[in-house]
C-alpha cells in the first residue's frame, strides 16, 4: 500500500497509533479550514469547527466505510458542523453599502499591486458569500475552491445533484449581482 495513501494512515490510527492521524490533519487541514471559514465567515470559529470536525472524524474513524474518499467524508463532517453552528447564531445581514468603497486604498498597503488586487478580490468574494445562505456558501466553496463535481458535493451535503445545480445557479446569480454593485460603487468612489 502506498504510504502516502490516506487509507494507510487510517489503518495505522485504527491500530492505536494516534500520531498517524497528524498526517491526515496536516494533509487536509487547509481545505477543511477554508470550507469552515467560507461558511461561517470568521477565522476563530472556523478553527474551532475544523478542530471539532477532525475530532469527530477521529472518534468515528472505525465507522468510515471507504465508500468515498477520506476527504469527502471529512468535508461532510466539516460542512454539517459549520452549517449547524451558523444556524444557531443570529445572522447579521450586511448591505452592499457596508463594503468599504475605499477597500482598494486600504488594501494597497499590501506589498505589491498584484497582491493588493488579490486581497481586494478575496475580500469582495467573502463579502458576497456572507450575503447568501450558509448552504449556498458551502456549495460555492466545494464547487469553486475544492473543485469538486456535483456528485461529490451531493455525497457531502446530502442534496441531490439536480438541486445542487439549481442552487449553484441561484448563488452565482446573487453573488454576481453583489459583485457588480460593489464594483460600480468602487468605480464611482475613484472617479
Amino acid at each position: 500500500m502506498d504510504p502516502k495513501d490516506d487509507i494507510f494512515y487510517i489503518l495505522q490510527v485504527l491500530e492505536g497509533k494516534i500520531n498517524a492521524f497528524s498526517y491526515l490533519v496536516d494533509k487536509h487541514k487547509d481545505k477543511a479550514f477554508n470550507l469552515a471559514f467560507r461558511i461561517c465567515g470568521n477565522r476563530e470559529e472556523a478553527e474551532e469547527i475544523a478542530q471539532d470536525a477532525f475530532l469527530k472524524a477521529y472518534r468515528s474513524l472505525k465507522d468510515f466505510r471507504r465508500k468515498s474518499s477520506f476527504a469527502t467524508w471529512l468535508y461532510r463532517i466539516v460542512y454539517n458542523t459549520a452549517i449547524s453552528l451558523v444556524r444557531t447564531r443570529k445572522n447579521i445581514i450586511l448591505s452592499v453599502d457596508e463594503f468599504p468603497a475605499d477597500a482598494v486604498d486600504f488594501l494597497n498597503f499590501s506589498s505589491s499591486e498584484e497582491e493588493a488586487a488579490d486581497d481586494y478580490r478575496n475580500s469582495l468574494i467573502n463579502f458576497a458569500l456572507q450575503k447568501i445562505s450558509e448552504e449556498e456558501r458551502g456549495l460555492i466553496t466545494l464547487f469553486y475552491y475544492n473543485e469538486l463535481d456535483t456528485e461529490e458535493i451531493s455525497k457531502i451535503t446530502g442534496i441531490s445533484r439536480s438541486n445542487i445545480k439549481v442552487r449553484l445557479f441561484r448563488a452565482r446569480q446573487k453573488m454576481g449581482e453583489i459583485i457588480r454593485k460593489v464594483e460600480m460603487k468602487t468605480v464611482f468612489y475613484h472617479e
Partner: protein
Amino acid sequence: MNKHEINDEDLLRKFLNPEKIEKAPEGFTSKTITRIQIETQSAKFNQSFLVKNRVPVISAAITAGLIIAAIIIPAGETESVGSTVWKYLQGLEFTLPVINNTYFREFILPGWVPYAMVGILLLGFFDRALFGLFHKGKNP
C-alpha cells in the same frame, strides 16, 4: 447556459481563485492532535464504573449466582441440579395465566406462542441493554 449565467460564471471565476484558499492557522495540526489526546483520555476517565470494571463486575455476578445456587440446592442431594432447581421453582407456586385467545379462533395458535413472543421481546431488550453497555465507550 444562457448569457447571463455565463456572465455570472465568468465573474465568479475572475474573482474567485481556487489557489487562494484561507489556510489553517500556524500550529493547527499540533493543537488538534493535543486536543484529540486530551479528549480521548478524558473520555476513558469518564466511562461509567460498570464499563471500566466490567470484568470484576461480571465475575462478582457469577460468584453471587453460585452462592445463591448453593443456598437453594441443599448439600448431599443425590438428585441432578436440574431437578432440584425445577422442584424449587415448583415450590414457588408460580403459574402462568391462561390467555383466552377467542378472538383468534381461526388461527389456533399453540398455547406457548404468546410466551415465546414475550420471551423474544425480553431477549431483544436484554440484547440492546448489553450492546449499550459494551459499546458505550467505543461509539460516542
